């Protein structure tokens, strides 16, 4: 059980980290913008936008993967456009896995960030405005720094969700070793083969360690940036 990681296991971990990091990094600004819109602005269609953002949380992941396939597949409208204009195809590629992970992580990230933006006292923003700050300057110096714990929490949740993403990924980009076979897909594949108990257990422990590591890292980051009494968990 306790043996050094094999090249195949390293490949799975490396791919999972790459997919999750890319997914979370690209989603972060979009999630924060959506969180800010939903927390601070009243506009027609706000409820619909809120529902759309949260949809991946309640719809079966397989359905999300199927919708991604319809939109971003070779014959899908977005997929065709990407292929024709940029020469990019997401199907059966790790980039597609990152897109699936991003869509699944988005609601969790938006939720955490929105709560922390709502918790920022708007009267402080008003005070900043009277002291000479424009809307943008008040956002940058008051709202953004005060909502950092939510950004951290949302990022960790999103990252953990991305590491664990299974249904949408396998539906959208299949289960290709070295390309789209992330940790959960590797565990699923190993389970299909008899006599792989130890391999499955090793991968499961790796999944737990990765997620735990992410949580502890973010806790440490929040404490370092906001003082030891602050925490993300």
């Amino acid at each position, binding site marked *: 059980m306790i043996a050094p990681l094999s090249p195949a296991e390293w490949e799975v971990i490396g791919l999972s980290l790459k997919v999750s990091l890319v997914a979370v990094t690209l989603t972060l600004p979009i999630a924060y913008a959506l969180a800010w819109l939903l927390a601070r602005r009243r506009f027609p269609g706000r409820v619909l936008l809120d529902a759309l953002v949260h949809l991946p949380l309640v719809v079966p992941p397989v359905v999300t993967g199927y919708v991604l396939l319809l939109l971003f597949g070779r014959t899908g409208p977005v997929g065709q456009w990407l292929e024709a204009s940029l020469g990019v195809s997401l199907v059966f590629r790790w980039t597609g896995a990152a897109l699936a992970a991003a869509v699944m992580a988005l609601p969790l990230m938006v939720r955490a960030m929105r709560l922390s933006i709502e918790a920022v006292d708007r*009267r402080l923003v008003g*005070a900043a*405005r*009277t*002291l*000479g700050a*424009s809307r943008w300057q008040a956002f940058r110096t008051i709202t953004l*720094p005060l909502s950092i714990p939510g950004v951290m929490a949302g990022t960790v949740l999103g990252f953990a969700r991305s590491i664990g993403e299974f249904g949408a990924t396998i539906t959208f980009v299949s289960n290709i070793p070295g390309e789209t076979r992330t940790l959960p897909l590797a565990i699923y594949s190993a389970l299909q083969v008899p006599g792989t108990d130890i391999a499955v257990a090793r991968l499961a422990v790796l999944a737990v360690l990765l997620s735990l590591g992410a949580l502890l890292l973010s806790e440490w980051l929040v404490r370092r940036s906001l003082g030891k009494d602050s925490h993300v968990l």
Partner: protein
Amino acid sequence: MSFDIAIEHRIGTRDVSLQLQSGNPLVALVGPSGAGKTTALNCIAGLLRPDQGRIAIGGTTLFDSEAGIDLQPEARRCGYVFQDSRLFPHLTVKQNLAYGSRFADPGTEWISQQEVADLLDIGDLLGRRPQTLSGGEERRVAIGRALLCAPHFLLLDEPLASLDAERARQVLTCIERIRDEMELPILLVSHDRAEIARLTETVVSIADT
């Protein structure tokens, strides 16, 4: 004319109306609790948009519903001392004090951080966070922060509340100095008749209908 204000604003079922024309640089605004004194200050600061009327202070028109003028809060340059201080919790006292000066045009400040620290006796607090301050300390820092943003006029919402007698006397002296030396229009909300009597003869009452 220091103040030329005539505004009406409706909140829920309540009408707040303020009429104020005065050449006196320091005007006290009085009225029963809930009459809309803070609402009026928020309208003047640009945090609330009055339903109609006109606000001009020190010759500058900040708001005029008929002429379609409505300056953004940051363009009004008011030093607003809120009733509840509203210090920024993630910044130190020093950073709170310096917050407004970074947006002020260079050379327009009329008081230095050192002078403010001496005047309000907050030099020892500079490294601390607002959460660790007492009510009186918080208030003094809030006054200092408002003075340091190079304001064109001051809005003081109960500036002496929660200060002990000695400290209140010092801040009162400071307000008098600003009134006399800076010729800055000051609008002061207060419940304290003695405080008002010492500072100004111009008292305007706000009424709700």
